[in-house]
């Protein structure tokens, strides 16, 4: 098709029905988007409202006055910074452990040639879709025997031994790096570890960033892990603490919305700064999966 032809067909397409089509499309998208975002408006605006204002009839979006009372009250009632520290310890080790162990394994699966490699990699794929409940009970019993229940170890140690999803993502990236790039180093007698550390890893920064983000989100948001493996108030993570605030009889909504806002905020900020890596990573997981 040449360019004049295209122009003609494009011009012809702008018709009343075309405009109607666009209006309907935008209408649908806006309607769905609003439904998706309403909860956030609630969360953030609610955190500035008083308890009595939250359930007022008729409902009003904006608080009568923006007050930080809920925030002040939350810091007074719960040891927020202890929970934050606990969460950050777990998150930090999760990111470090995932980056180290998964990049090593991905290198072994992508850059080295050995018999049976693709069959072994199938195991990685299969473990990716394994529901975690299958391993939950025996892991609890194992960690219990080791005396790890009530410490951070069950939430930290396993991530130093590879995560199938992250290995998969990093392998996809490593496979795409042309052989020529490592060839020269190999001829010069550089060891595999050296090639991994000083050539592949610096190149893989975008993929590593994606893994770091996912590791952050997963451990920051994790609920069942802390619920099963941690005990004792002083070890609680933010997620666990938030769930404990919701007593069935008298949930403290003002505090919950405040704590929730503070938990969502870092994730949203991270997302807006590193958006590209989020979208890339998720898109990559599906294309070849």
């Amino acid at each position, binding site marked *: 098709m040449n360019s004049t032809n295209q122009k003609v067909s494009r011009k012809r397409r702008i018709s009343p029905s075309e405009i109607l089509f666009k209006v309907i499309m935008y209408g*649908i998208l806006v309607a769905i988007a609003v439904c998706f975002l309403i909860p956030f408006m609630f969360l953030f605006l609610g955190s500035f409202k008083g308890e009595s204002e939250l359930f007022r009839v008729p409902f009003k979006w904006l608080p009568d006055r923006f007050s930080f009372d809920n925030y002040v009250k939350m810091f007074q009632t719960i040891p927020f910074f202890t929970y934050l520290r606990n969460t950050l310890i777990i998150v930090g080790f999760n990111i470090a452990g995932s980056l180290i162990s998964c990049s090593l394994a991905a290198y072994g699966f992508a850059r080295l040639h050995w018999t049976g490699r693709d069959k072994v990699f199938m195991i990685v794929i299969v473990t990716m879709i394994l529901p975690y409940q299958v391993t939950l009970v025996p892991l609890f019993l194992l960690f219990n025997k080791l005396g790890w229940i009530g410490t951070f170890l069950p939430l930290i140690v396993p991530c130093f031994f590879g995560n199938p999803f992250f290995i998969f993502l990093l392998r996809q990236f490593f496979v795409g790096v042309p052989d020529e790039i490592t060839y020269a180093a190999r001829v010069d007698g550089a060891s595999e570890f050296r090639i991994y550390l000083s050539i592949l890893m610096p190149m893989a920064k975008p993929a590593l960033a994606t893994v770091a983000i996912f590791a952050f989100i997963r451990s920051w*948001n994790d609920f069942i892990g802390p619920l099963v493996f941690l005990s004792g108030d002083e070890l609680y993570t933010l997620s666990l603490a938030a769930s404990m605030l919701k007593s069935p009889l008298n949930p403290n909504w003002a505090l919950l919305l405040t704590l929730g806002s503070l938990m969502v905020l870092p994730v949203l900020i991270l997302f807006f700064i590193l958006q590209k890596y989020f979208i890339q990573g998720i898109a*990559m997981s599906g294309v070849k999966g």
Partner: protein
Amino acid sequence: MKKRKMNLKRTEFKHAMLFISPWIFGVIVFTLYPILSSLYYSFCEYKVVQDPIFVGLQNYKDLFADKTFLKALYNTGYMILIGVPITTFTAIWVSILLNNKKLKYTGVFRIMFFIPTLIPTVVACLLWVWMLQPDSGIINRLLGAFGISGPGWISSVTWSKPAFILIMIWTCGNAIIIYLAGLQDISDSLYEAAALDGAGFFRQTISITIPLLKSTILYNVVTLIIGVFQWFAEPYIITSGGPDNSTMFYALYLYQNAFQFFKMGYASAMAWVLLIIAMAIILVLFKVFKFNEVDS
């Protein structure tokens, strides 16, 4: 020469083993050992404080006579048969809309749909509890504004599962991103050719988009189904399985057996039934989609 090649191969194998050794250790200790020991425990009565006592198939027999278990199985099946298709349908249509070249600002919309997946599950659940309140919740207020008197949602036996489907749709942003990536792989020339042949938007979608999106749909559907089997935080926080066990889902009942009733053997039997059902569903899906290669 040949010998040197052999040696090279052997050293490369050795290197590879070193590189993947952390993963090998992890897969044996944190995956393989737990799976196998849970198979063993599933044949035992095991209350943590005492050593496991071998009871044969008793746990499995008890399971299929256990009304709550059957209810959990039914509820999980309901979500898979009704919730998963609705969510998949929504996600595909939204991504087809977003992929439309004639529309602008699609990047902004993509972000809006993605944001709910970022919110910590616990916070999301608490928000939904609040929004779904029968009298004071925003959803029924909105419905009320249109003259519809909203149902009791999470306090009603019939409406509690649909309420969970709403939550499922709300968090389908991941799937939308993956569908969009799949859509971008479909060549424009196909649509142009179809347009020349007089095929309209809907015809193009059904004859070109959906068939070429097959492997992406399979991936997302499998992920969603595994997700439903693992659904724990949502029912645990929002309803604790109620009312009348209408939101007692598989993972929640498994958790209760293991960590509230301390029936480790029984919970392990549940885990194995789950494993078998999940694998069977995935195999059937692969057959249906006639998609045998996982990764080339």
